[in-house]
């Protein structure tokens, strides 16, 4: 990891290129409450970054700010060099950001394959009338989307369940399907909100391999919120720790694990001194 502009650290291999995500002094107020305060963070082009912190620290709020679910009160976000202010959520998706949700949001009444196809929007130009009259453009799109959807599903061993209803999948598969759907929109930055929630240790281990594989295969950056410290410390290169909306520490997993401020935030002051 190397420092960049004195604002944060990114992996050496990404140092030559501008960061995929450049967040400066981000704040958001809900009523009188400052939920995120002066949040500044850089994420490298192919970095796996972690955002951790106690419950209610504001982690998901940061994700919601990044995807314009909420409007920041102050500060700015550059995604791939472009200011995200005023963009709608689907425009941000086109700019290269895709996410999963803490409480799964699949299209439960649609098939697994259709869930993935919904997110495929890049490079298809067949219009409404072309599709209604099943002109050649429709057949081309359907074939391309079908092949691509199965390829992506296969990465997470879901290709065999392509015809099942998404809502009928077991919990772990639903989490994986959400990641596949996010991938289908060809993001440059993937936000995963507690991807391992509800998974058993062996599933979590598989997920770690899968996340690394995604970064290597697709060359994308991944930012994740997670409470499972084995996962976070195992795959994240840079970690930011959030508490009461403020970043209290940034660094490599090793630095975070030994940082007294972090230990205090997680375990309380007394225990922090004991440790």
């Amino acid at each position, binding site marked *: 990891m190397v420092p960049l502009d004195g604002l944060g650290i990114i992996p050496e291999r990404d140092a030559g290129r501008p960061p995929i995500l450049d967040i400066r002094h981000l704040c958001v107020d809900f009523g009188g409450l400052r939920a995120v305060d002066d949040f500044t963070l850089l994420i490298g082009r192919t970095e796996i970054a972690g955002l951790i912190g106690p419950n209610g620290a504001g982690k998901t709020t940061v994700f919601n700010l990044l995807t314009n679910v909420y409007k920041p009160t102050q500060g700015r976000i550059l995604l791939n060099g472009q200011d995200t202010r005023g963009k709608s959520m689907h425009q941000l998706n086109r700019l290269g950001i895709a*996410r999963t949700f803490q409480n799964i949001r*699949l299209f439960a009444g649609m098939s697994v394959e259709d869930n993935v196809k919904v997110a495929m929007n890049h490079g298809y130009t067949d219009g409404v009338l072309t599709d209604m009259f*099943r002109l050649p453009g429709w057949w081309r799109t359907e074939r391309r989307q079908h092949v691509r959807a199965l390829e992506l599903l296969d990465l997470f061993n879901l290709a065999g369940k392509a015809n*099942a209803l998404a809502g009928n999948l*077991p919990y772990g598969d639903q989490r994986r399907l959400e990641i596949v759907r996010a991938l289908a929109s060809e993001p440059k930055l993937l936000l995963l909100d507690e991807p391992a929630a509800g998974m058993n240790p062996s599933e979590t281990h598989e997920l770690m391999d899968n996340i690394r594989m995604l970064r290597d295969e697709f060359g994308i950056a991944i930012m994740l919120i997670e409470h499972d410290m084995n996962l976070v410390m195992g795959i994240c290169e840079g970690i930011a720790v959030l508490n009461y909306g403020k970043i209290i520490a940034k660094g490599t997993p090793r630095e975070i694990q030994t940082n007294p401020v972090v230990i205090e935030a997680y375990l309380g002051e007394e225990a922090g001194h004991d440790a």
Partner: protein
Amino acid sequence: MNGYKQIPVYLRYLINTLLLGAFLLGGNALLASGAVNRAQSAVILQIGIYILLAVSLNVATGYLGQLPLGHAGFMAVGGYGAALLWKAMPRSAGAIVLGLLLGGLVAAVFGVVIGVPALRLKGDYLAIITLGFGEIIRVLIINLPGITGGTPGLMNIPKHSSFLVVYTTVILSCALIHTLMKSRHGRAILAIRENEIAAESSGVNTTFYKVLAFTVSAFFAGVAGALYAGYTGILTPGNFTFMTSVNILVMVVLGGLGSMAGSVIAATILTALPLALQSFNKYRMVIYALLLIAVMIFKPSGLLGRYDFSLTRILEKLINGQLFARAKKAGEDRA
């Protein structure tokens, strides 16, 4: 895959086309032969028109998941649009097609104009605002007697809606709605119903697709209105009240939100039922109401839920010897 035999695409299209063609010609011959009396053939035409109304409303309610209450308004503008054209043109096949298209297009324009502001709202709010727009259309019709004939109505509309015209239009419209829903645009519309935030963050332009679904719904309601004009020969504002919208909505809900086959079946039953019950005139509306209540209690998702009929699927099960095999649970199959 896995030895599950599938029917080739061209054969599927051929089977469906042949069956529908046989239905059209057979029905036409039946009506022409005089085997059905005038009252019965009138009901048959009405059924076709209500099928199209229900199927078109189903696009906005069942597929998009919104609750518009102004469907009769779109039907009205389509009907008046087509009627005015037909009155000005000599009878010809071209005039009929042109009138149907014009009815649809006029309604679609209203669909866009109403949809853009209305679809910023959701649920009850959308219901109220579309109800308002539907009434505005009706009041406009009353107050523009120069064009629409005002309260007494528009008379002497050429009666173009023969069995062939009505059912060919209905079948084509259903087919076009079906093909739309089986495309990337249709999937985007369904995704909005399933989870709007997830759809938006998956790159679906939800505003565009909401207006699109609403407009398609209005277009086919307009076509149905045109058929209605050509069926009755007289259009009065009283044909297009709020109650008409509600009747169509009842058909969609009863058939199952999101099921085209359900809309078709419910429209058929609910149109034929009041006439079939005519001999119990006193209790007709009571029986009708009790039936609705019974379905909603015992099958709240509607007669067919979200199930959609597919002849191909049934034929494929048949040739694979699985017609009566129990439906497999998700995840079990083809793992």
